[in-house]
């Protein structure tokens, strides 16, 4: 009894001391954390010319590319476009498929790019709006025009005048696609316009829209009579109100990422906003799924090859760009990936590669279709934050 008591008291006081010490450390660290520059976030904007690395291409015959999945023909197979590139140039390609989402990829590399540190990649492939943002951030190296003559000669005209890089100084489209409407012809009649999609009574609760802000808001701006390439803040709010009304009416089942096709085939939804490449692939399984050009037009987008700051194999990466802008190579790639081929002359080359696809308007859209396409105005970082917040407040219901 007597031997137990002091022991117990000592444990108690030790615990008390730990608690006290913990509290002091807690307070100390918290003050330090709030003052320490470590936790202030400096601006990430850079000057790309100040973040160039020495080009080792001449001695190191290799380069690293980060791309999306399913975006190239089987790479290791003899006769594939990539293995032929490696044979022709003697450059070995470290091809990784680690881009799953523009925002996620941005979050992953932002800190390095923002502090002028290498991201260990020589080429990244990102969608228009994120490409615009990366270029705005100063994280992308200008291309050496003399190294990529095929790009200048063969890029489709409708992909040329991007507001965020009109001179093609920083980017080269890898593949392009259209955003339009898909519907299940076995269960409902044709849906001709976006306006119809968000208001037709028999589609109530049976449609989805895409959760990418620019895809959906581009069409909403068209619906309220604005131009997605040049709109005012008032027009933005009109379009957003129109969308909020459709959400409030219960017209939408949900905003979807890339899981809408499953719902469309299963009959959970009858029609939806959709990407062209997805629809082609779904049509192999279910011919009732149709893609239509809405009366409002089509949104045309690209995923773009770019060379990040501190890349050490720029010349090798430029060889790759030039190679894939050869019409014959582009046709062979398009034969496999089924997105819109951004290369002029690839359609003629497709005659020998796979005659079945020559007349597919979702791989080689005609002039008339391309004339109806639009893209989305580039946003500065303040607009980006404000619009994304307002957008997510509506889509949150």
């Amino acid at each position, binding site marked *: 009894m007597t031997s137990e008591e002091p022991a117990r008291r000592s444990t108690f006081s030790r615990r008390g001391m730990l608690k006290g010490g913990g509290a002091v450390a807690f307070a100390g*660290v918290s003050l330090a954390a709030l003052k320490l520059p470590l936790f202030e976030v400096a*601006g990430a904007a850079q000057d790309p010319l100040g973040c160039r690395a020495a080009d080792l291409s001449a001695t190191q015959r290799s380069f690293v590319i980060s791309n999306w999945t399913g975006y190239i023909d089987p790479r290791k197979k003899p006769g594939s476009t990539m293995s032929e590139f490696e044979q022709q140039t003697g450059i070995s390609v470290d091809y990784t498929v680690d881009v799953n989402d523009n925002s996620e990829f941005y979050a992953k590399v932002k800190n390095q790019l923002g502090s002028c540190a290498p991201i260990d990649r020589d080429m990244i492939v990102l969608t228009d709006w994120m490409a615009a943002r990366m270029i705005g951030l100063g994280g992308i190296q200008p291309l050496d025009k003399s190294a990529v003559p095929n790009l200048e000669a063969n890029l489709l005209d409708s992909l040329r005048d991007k507001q965020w890089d009109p001179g093609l100084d920083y980017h080269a489209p890898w593949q392009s696609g259209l955003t339009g409407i898909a519907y299940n012809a076995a269960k409902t009649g044709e849906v001709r316009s976006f306006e119809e999609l968000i208001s037709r009574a028999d589609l109530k609760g049976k449609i989805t829209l895409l959760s990418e802000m620019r895809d959906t808001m581009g069409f909403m701006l068209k619906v309220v009579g604005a131009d997605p390439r040049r709109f005012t803040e008032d027009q933005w709010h009109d379009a957003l109100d129109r969308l909020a009304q459709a959400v409030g009416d219960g017209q939408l089942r949900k905003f979807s990422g890339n899981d809408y096709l499953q719902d469309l085939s299963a009959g*959970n939804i009858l029609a939806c906003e959709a990407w062209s490449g997805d629809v082609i692939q779904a049509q192999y399984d279910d011919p009732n799924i149709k893609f239509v050009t809405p009366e409002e037009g089509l949104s045309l987008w690209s995923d773009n090859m770019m060379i990040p700051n501190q890349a050490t194999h720029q010349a090798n990466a430029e060889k790759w760009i030039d190679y894939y802008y050869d019409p014959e190579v582009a046709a062979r790639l398009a034969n496999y990936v089924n997105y819109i081929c951004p290369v002029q002359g690839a359609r003629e080359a497709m005659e020998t590669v796979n005659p079945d696809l020559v007349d597919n308007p979702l791989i080689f859209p005609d002039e008339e279709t391309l004339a109806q396409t639009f893209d989305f105005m580039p946003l500065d970082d303040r607009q980006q934050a404000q619009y994304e917040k307002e957008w997510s407040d509506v889509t949150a219901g």
Partner: protein
Amino acid sequence: MSDTERRRGKVGYLLLLPAVLWLGLFFVVPFYSLLATSLFDQSGSDFRGYEMDYAFGNYVDVLRDYWQPLVRSLLYGAIATAICLVLGYVLAYAIAFKAGRWKNLMLVLVIAPFFTSFLIRTLSWKLILSDDGFIVNVLQAVHLLGDDGRLLATPVAVVAGLTYNFLPFMVLPLFASIDKIDHRLIEASGDLYAHPVVGFFKVTWPLSLPGVVSGTLLTFIPAVGDYINAQLLGSTNQRVIGSVIESQFTDANNYPVAAALSMVLMALIVVMVLVYVRRAGTEELL
């Protein structure tokens, strides 16, 4: 005597060192980074940077703008936890007391779904609950659902998904508690003329409380923060706080709001858990 004690004390602190370093590095530092971010000036951006502004107004903003998803998350988490408790208790009781030689096999079966990915398991619920699927058709036939009724994209689907995904976290601690209960105590209650139901509430239930407490905590805490179920099985009207945080962080790049929301969520959960643990008196139970 006091010498050895002092030496023992030093050894104790040394043994604490790895844990303290670990917590300092992977909990305290990120936690303060989060706290600091939640007080940054919201008008900052990636390009221009964020400045420390002691903007406590961020907290007012997020509570005003996002109280609905916050309440919804807590509600879905609580309902799913309650259903898990009922289902899990029956299951754990059956495995512990009635399974006999099948006990080990049944335990493995409880864990078996973990062998497939979380996403795949959740996506397969889309097939099970789809509008033209068996369950919806049956419910429509017995008029529990209208002809236009559906389960997907409703709160029912979200709670069902949460319940399914977190059930094993409830069953395992419950099983561990129930399995340890001495059968003779239950028999004794019968010998004293207690009805089996009374015996359950007087003997089995109190003895299984440690499992109940740890099971509900292990289910409730992750269920509140989960947003995959709401994203895949819910509609826009079932957005939970996890998706709001995610979209504020990755899409809107509004780090102060995302951080303030995370802090609020964390504080709410800590308070609720503290109240719950105080009530249940776990200090003695665990």
